[in-house]
């Protein structure tokens, strides 16, 4: 079942009197339980594509079907609903609320979803336990290490049981050991049946995914499965195993 179906989308920005074609013409499909990496140099349109996949932005032209619903013309509020229920974001800079503790940060999407307090707390706790932070629930972001912060962010992304996890350079601000831990976590999440879209410019990180889409100058340059998927913990196996 495909979750994302994009047909001939483009995005044009007006910068002064000049038109910038961030995305020329991209079509792609992503199925349930895929692990996709989107790669590209800066200025390739990779970030724009990610914003559109994450329903943070809408295309200038073309159609974006998300779970069978055309979201390319949706209002801001409807997009907010889609983001809340269907998309879990993990950012390079973690983007946690600095004044709230880990538990409240994870609860936040559920607050916007209108989940009652009791259930909210339970689900948030569960999500934090899943990422191995059961002892850090009442720590504020500045009391946590980088890796722990990113795990809070992953818990926040997972807590609404979204259709896709969208991770933008999730290891960019972490040292390689911690980055590896996070990638291990992503692998587990993937193996649990989730759909992950990973945006990165590091070949080595991208090879954790099962499929790599390479973007250049607003077009898809290549879209192919990873032959030798890099499995954390040193294990390697091929796609579709």
């Amino acid at each position, binding site marked *: 079942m495909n979750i994302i179906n994009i047909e001939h989308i483009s995005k044009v920005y007006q910068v002064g009197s000049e038109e910038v074609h961030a995305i020329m013409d991209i079509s792609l499909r992503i199925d349930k339980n895929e692990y996709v990496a989107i790669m590209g140099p800066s200025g390739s349109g990779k970030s724009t594509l990610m914003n559109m996949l994450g329903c943070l932005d809408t295309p200038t032209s073309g159609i974006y079907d998300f779970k069978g619903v055309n979201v390319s013309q949706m209002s801001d509020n409807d997009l907010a609903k889609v983001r809340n229920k269907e998309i879990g*974001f993990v950012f390079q800079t973690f*983007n946690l609320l600095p004044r709230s503790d880990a538990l409240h940060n994870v609860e936040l999407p559920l607050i*916007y979803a209108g989940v009652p307090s009791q259930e909210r707390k339970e689900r948030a706790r569960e999500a934090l336990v899943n990422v191995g932070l059961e002892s850090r629930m009442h720590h504020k972001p500045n009391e946590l290490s980088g890796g722990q912060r990113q795990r809070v962010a992953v818990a926040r992304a997972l807590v609404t049981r979204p259709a896709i996890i969208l991770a933008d350079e999730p290891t960019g601000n972490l040292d390689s050991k911690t980055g590896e831990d996070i990638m291990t976590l992503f692998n587990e999440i993937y193996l649990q049946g989730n759909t992950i879209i990973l945006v990165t410019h590091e070949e080595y990180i991208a090879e954790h995914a099962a499929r790599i889409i390479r973007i250049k100058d607003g077009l898809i340059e290549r879209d192919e499965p990873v032959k030798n998927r890099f499995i954390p913990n040193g294990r390697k196996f091929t796609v579709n195993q």
Partner: protein
Amino acid sequence: MKNFLFELKEGLSISYMAIKANKIRSALTAIGIFIGVTSVVLMSTAIKGIDNSFQNGISALGSDNLYIDKWKWFQDEEWWKTRNRKNLTMEDYEKYKESAKLPIAVAPQVWTVQTLKNGGITTESTILTGTTNEYLGTTNFTFSSGRFFNEIESRGARNVVVLGSDVAKILFPKGDAIDQSIKMKGQNFRVVGVLAEQGSFMLGSMNPDKQVYLPIGNVFKYFQSEHFRSVTIIARVANTAMIEKTVEEAESIMRRIRGLSYNQEDDFSINQQQGLTKIYDSTVGIIQIVGLIVTGLSLFVGAIGIMNIMFVSVKERTKEIGIRKAIGAKKRTILGQFITEAIVLCLIGGLMGLIGAVILSKIVNQFLPTSFQAEAVILAIGISLITGVISGFAPAYSAAKMDPVEALRYE
């Protein structure tokens, strides 16, 4: 609705954290509202106090009274048309009293200004009202001691007086006025009653607290000729519904007494306290409005302070707004969050302002009557809420319409 409550709770906890994180800034901003609310509430309690005092005065004097006078109280005709009117006399009063069926009490009234003495204590320029015992029936006077002079004293023009509370306080500081004598123009007068405080300083020279009442015959006997000043005839109307009929009756009786033919205009005037109220509204009312505008301005300045700080807050938290939007906050949610924060700031200032106003109104009450009531609490909270919404809206709206992509990129 459920969502709204969750979001409101979230908004309140965010506000709490934001204010806690910026204590000094928040306190300084709230001071603006504090001052604004204090002055507005104080002003309104003073206005209420002045109003109450005026209304008390009116009701002490009797609110449904007709005052038949030579002239209209608040002249709107050309003065030369009325300047040759004849004085109203005691005979006019007697005749009116005889013919009038509708009033429940009728009394004449003349005034004079005299100096009062009790041994070494003197009060100068005190207003004396000469009248009959029936005068009491036209008022709602209450007595702190003694009584009004009776019919015998009134008819016989005995040397008795009733003192207004302020006059009594000056002449008899120890408060033992009853049966004591005071001197006016060398004559002794026995005090038979002292009025309770009627508390109506707004009435100026009509304030009963500053007057002395005595049988009308004494005024003519000792102080001034019967024809020196026109007599005012006071007629108490049975009830408000009867005012119009009583006025009509008075007009026809007076025209007959004054011997006017059908084509002559009235040479007297039937006044009512409405006239007083009208003049009160037009002068004091304007002062009140100006007062409220001036104090309202300080609130306005406070509101601008809140707006300013909210704009700063929104700018500082651009990233946070981006995060919230990314994980599903709607425009409405963000709008509500920042308006809530502005309201919380204003309420903090407003509650402090309320406390300030309570304390200040106690102090001001020494000079001016203030009336502090539940309405003031509602007013303070109400204006804080409204100020919060108004001053928070523009910054909150600018936050709500932020593009999530831009906001997330903001450092």
